[in-house]
């Protein structure tokens, strides 16, 4: 019974839904709602990256670049060309998908540190372009973005936007779990284990890798567009190296190949800066200590280590009862 509980996907989903539904009633003011929204954004981004890194085993140190492409795509299209927000979002997502496809085709044959270097370069190039093309992007100061109208509804204020991102988060978790349990998802996990073995088993390794790269990038781009409309403001920092690193930390700290791990990682990365704000220098030290210590003592990430620990005594007890 307990192992059924731990292995099924429903309890986790139910818990997440309950927490997400209850939060607005608990959070006292708009500031906390904003923190919750930021956490949802980090979590969705983390899940997108986890599909690529955790499940497929392809590291990316430039993922914030795709987020930035989506955010700036929407910002530039709506402000400079008067394109409707939804159309701008779709256009930016399509543009990012094309870029990811083109880049993925050439860099996904690289492995390990070389792939890390190439993706890192990609992210930095995006943020440098965003900084330098000031006529379009407002340069280092960034630019303002209008609200988002869809079918006559314009979310305004933190509490309305909260529901947009809450629905997105739960939807992303469900879809990601579906993908992982599908034949396509199993193919990804197989090629993570051994590309040669996966190829022998009939999986077209290269195409699968490119597909998950494009998917992951596109999700980040859509999220970037929505985040730009929510914040009402974009700057090149959101595509920067530190942002990409933050996403990698969410994935690895929470747990590679663990959807809820990414949600957990996002909570930590969303809350910590608030707790540490105002202690200049010490925030950086505390962050560093937590990251290094988590990786040394829980190398598989917090959530997988915890579930493994929860499972082991239960299973033994279950076997004892069966005898």
């Amino acid at each position, binding site marked *: 019974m307990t192992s059924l509980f731990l292995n099924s996907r429903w309890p986790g989903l139910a818990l997440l839904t309950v927490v997400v539904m209850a939060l607005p009633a608990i959070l006292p003011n708009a500031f906390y709602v904003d923190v919750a929204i930021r956490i949802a954004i980090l979590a969705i981004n983390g899940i997108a990256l986890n599909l690529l890194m955790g499940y497929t085993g392809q590291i990316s140190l430039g993922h914030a670049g795709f987020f930035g492409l989506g955010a700036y795509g929407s910002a530039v299209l709506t402000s400079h060309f008067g394109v409707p927000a939804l159309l701008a979002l779709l256009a930016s997502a399509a543009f990012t998908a094309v870029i990811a496809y083109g880049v993925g085709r050439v860099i996904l044959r690289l492995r390990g*540190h070389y792939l890390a270097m190439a993706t890192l370069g990609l992210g930095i190039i995006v943020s440098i372009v965003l900084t330098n093309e000031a006529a379009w992007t407002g340069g280092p100061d960034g630019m303002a973005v209008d609200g988002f109208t869809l079918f006559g509804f314009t979310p305004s204020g933190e509490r309305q936007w909260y529901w947009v991102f809450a629905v997105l988060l739960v939807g992303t978790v469900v879809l990601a779990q579906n993908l992982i349990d599908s034949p396509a998802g199993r193919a990804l996990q197989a090629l993570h284990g051994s590309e*040669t073995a996966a190829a022998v088993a009939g999986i077209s390794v290269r195409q699968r890798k490119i597909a998950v790269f494009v998917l992951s990038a596109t999700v980040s781009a859509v999220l970037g567009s929505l985040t730009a409309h929510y914040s009402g403001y974009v700057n090149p920092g959101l595509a920067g190296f530190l942002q990409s690193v933050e996403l990698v930390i969410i994935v*690895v700290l929470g747990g590679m190949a663990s959807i809820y791990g990414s949600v957990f990682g996002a909570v930590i990365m969303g809350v910590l800066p608030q707790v540490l704000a105002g202690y200049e220098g*010490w925030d950086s030290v505390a962050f*560093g200590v937590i990251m290094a210590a988590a*990786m*040394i003592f829980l*190398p598989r990430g917090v959530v997988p280590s915890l579930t493994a620990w929860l499972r082991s005594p239960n299973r033994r007890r279950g076997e004892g009862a069966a005898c």
Partner: protein
Amino acid sequence: MSSELLQFILSGVTLGATYTLAALGFSMIYNASGVINFAQGEFIMVGGMAASFLTAAGVPLPLACVLGVMVAGVIGWLIERFAIAPARDAEVASIIIITIGVSMIVRGFTEILLGKGAYALPHFSGEAPIALAGATILPQSLWVLAVCALIVAGLGLFFGRTRIGKGVLATSYNRLAAQLVGVDVRKVLTLSFVLSAAIGAVGGVLVTPIATVSFDTGVMLGLKGFVAATLGGLGSGPGAVFGGLFLGLIEALTAGYISSSYKDAVPFVLVFIVLVLRPQGLLGAKPTDRI
């Protein structure tokens, strides 16, 4: 050769020498442990910051420089001992996170101890530029080039002629086999971290008079060192020298002839092209996989 071009080449080579020192640090640690140390840039920063602070506090310049390098060496030792050694069997991504965490710790403490401001060192032998075939070069640039050349030559001797240096090389080829023939692998690891921290810090001390330094200087320098090491081929000593100089030259020429606002993008575009055409780097050996 036009004097303008010569000027760009001179500044490119100076820049390249700094990248070379950073890239050598990356390669050394990568060889000994298979780890890409994302804290490498912080060693450069620590060297420059510590030397500047000590000089400002009244310590004579040469002594301050030596102490700055030693501080970085001690930090390198601490990192290996308390962050890398306990995580021996972790995955690549985990170790990358650890080194990024360590770099944040180093940056944070530097900010707490020395503040956010920029520090500078006096030029080692005056600031009067030396005229050279229509172009000029700062005496400090000559210092950078000379010390960089000395270090490269010294490392060549160390790895080629000394027992412990050969032990480091042996470990990088095959850790287990090296251990079996009596190489103290633990000592090799520690040595690599201390040495690459010290080399990075030497670079930091040398360029601080030209470029100034603050607590966040290390991030970009470290990334460019990583690019230089990758360009030449990770783990290759001559590759690091070549990658560093090549990167410095291209960057200076781009800044001079094309666009100075895009010069920071150059290393990353370059590494992109090189990796696509030659995934093992320009001078790296072709990798083989065990199935």
